[in-house]
């Protein structure tokens, strides 16, 4: 089969990625600017024998995909701002019960109803800490449609590998912008299927007993092993337990299975970093402006580079420290009040050299916005 070329919105690129990855169950509630993901999937899923359901709210959508994942399906939901807030309790449940699922959040301006049709990257911290309690999470992002496609596939692969919810943090500009997408032939990109148990019928199956490599083999609901799934701390059979040892070990397992694998999970791109004196760290649609500016200034002989993060959580502190160690200044380019900047500051040896170039007014941050700040940092005036 040949590669297919399409001219699509970012939200459609996300759908293409999900379908390529094998999504076969979607539950959602319409909310701008994520609606096209639901609309296109409502058409495409049944064509492939999959299921789409429009639930009564965002909470129900999140719960429904968890239920469907337990019967062995690859599942996703998509939302924006307020909907993401509503989903948090059930996202926490999926973390605790270790259920693979993908949640796309096409970010819009917040808090509250905020700025529905405008761009923002304000949900970075919510993706990490939106639900209560300690836990780990994986969150990916993308700055162009080819990457949206690939990161969506990655989101499914990581969810199935680590039995965890994976959050796809897109933004309004990426979601609604149109550009070229090349869809590779089936089989070209590797897909991960969840590990299924090899324990035969009648033999004690322990759904929460990790193998040596940390993975938990699953059994589909409706299959031969009947087990319990709960959001309470639970033993290896899935039954509630408040034993200090069980609680301690389970929480550490939930966090460690992600943190220990940070190198396998981290995704990034770099542009002109080798000799860069000024490094722009960015992601999503703001990374496009950062990359544009860097290319432009390189032509004029300025040593500017870009580190584009494609995975935000777990935050790649070591990577950022290493890449930024020789830079005079590091400028984080994002459309919020410095959510990733705080992480970058915590990563580098000298936080004083980290600056923020941002916009929070619902307008895209432009290369000239970034340039203005850079000039100040460089001591060259405006």
């Amino acid at each position: 089969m040949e590669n297919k070329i399409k001219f699509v919105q970012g939200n459609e690129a996300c759908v293409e990625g999900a379908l390529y990855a094998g999504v076969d169950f979607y539950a959602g509630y319409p909310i701008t600017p994520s609606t096209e993901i639901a609309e296109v999937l409502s058409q495409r899923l049944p064509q492939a024998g999959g299921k789409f359901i429009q639930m009564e709210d965002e909470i129900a959508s999140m719960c429904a995909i968890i239920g469907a994942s337990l019967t062995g399906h690859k599942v996703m939901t998509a939302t924006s701002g307020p909907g993401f807030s509503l989903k948090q309790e059930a996202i926490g449940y999926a973390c605790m019960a270790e259920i693979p699922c993908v949640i796309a959040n096409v970010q819009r301006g917040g808090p509250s109803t905020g700025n529905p049709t405008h761009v923002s990257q304000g949900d970075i911290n919510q993706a990490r800490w939106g639900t209560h309690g300690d836990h780990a999470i994986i969150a990916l992002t993308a700055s162009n449609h080819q990457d949206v496609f690939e990161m969506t596939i990655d989101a499914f692969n990581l969810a199935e590998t680590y039995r965890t919810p994976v959050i796809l943090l897109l933004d309004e500009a990426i979601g609604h912008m149109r550009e070229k997408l090349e869809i590779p032939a089936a089989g070209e990109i590797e897909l991960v299927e969840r590990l299924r148990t090899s324990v035969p019928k009648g033999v004690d199956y322990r759904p929460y007993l990790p193998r040596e490599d940390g993975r938990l083999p699953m059994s589909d609901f409706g299959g031969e092993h009947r087990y319990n799934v709960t959001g309470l701390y639970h033993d290896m059979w899935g039954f509630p337990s408040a034993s200090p040892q069980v609680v301690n070990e389970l929480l550490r397992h939930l966090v460690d299975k992600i943190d220990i694998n940070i190198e396998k999970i981290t995704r990034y791109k770099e542009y002109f970093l080798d000799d860069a004196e000024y490094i722009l760290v960015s992601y999503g649609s703001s990374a496009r402006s950062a990359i544009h500016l860097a290319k432009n200034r390189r032509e004029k002989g300025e040593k500017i580079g870009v580190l584009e993060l494609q995975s935000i959580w777990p935050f790649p502190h070591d990577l950022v420290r290493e890449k930024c160690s020789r830079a005079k200044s590091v400028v984080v380019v994002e459309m919020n009040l410095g959510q990733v900047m705080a992480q970058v500051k915590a990563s580098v040896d000298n936080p004083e050299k980290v600056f923020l170039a941002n916009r929070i007014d619902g307008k895209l941050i432009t290369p000239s916005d970034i340039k203005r700040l850079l000039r100040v940092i460089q001591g060259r005036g405006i």
Partner: protein
Amino acid sequence: MAVQDYIRQRFFPHMWCPGCGHGIVLNSLLRAVEQLELDKNDIVMTSGIGCSARISGYVDFHSLHTIHGRALAFATGVKLSKPELTLLVPMGDGDALAIGGNHFIHAARRNIDMTAIVMNNRIYGMTGGQFSPLSGCGIKATTAPYTTIDNDFNVVDLAAAAGATFVARSTVYHAKESTELLKNAIQHKGFSVVEILSQCPTHFGRKNKGGDAAAMMENYKNITAPVGSKTLEENPELLGRGIFVQKERPEYCQEYDKIIEVAMKGASK
């Protein structure tokens, strides 16, 4: 199969208080499953949070103990993704109709094939006796020290109005009748609601001078009468027991299969 083969015996004795009605609901339900000769692997029980919700841990089915109020939403995902499974969804009254009220009416509207069991004890038991949307007016609860002024829902009317195609009510005093109703509900193709009045002597009974468990159960006998009976006709203040709604309407998963058929034809053109 014997009824004890449907339970996870290692978790007994259960955590419910002595005299709690929930054990009787479990008994009625298991006897229904036993009499229908259902395969344990075909059943998924989804519950929410609260005393009632612990029921899913005791049954040897696929069991999903979810978050407060959302049992039906989880169950919808399970059922639609694997329609051949039988979904049993026991819920407490607050679980089903306060925080879960939205899911309740929408599951009924869709007419998705599952059996919702409202274990109605008119109180939040696990959190220590706060009033629920089924408490009704004039009830004492830890959050209603001067008695409640909140009206309650009539579960039967609400379920019927929302579109449930099977609606029934019974009490734990009438355990065998409950089994019959549950059998009908499980066999019914569509969204079934069975309300079972179940006592919480620990919180509701103590605060409202309901007497001990036996007295509370006795009361269920006195305040109810079978649907269609003369007693009920003559005493409209009594609560009806039995089947209120039983009708055919297209079931959601089956309708979705038709969507797939249409979509696939369109795609192959």
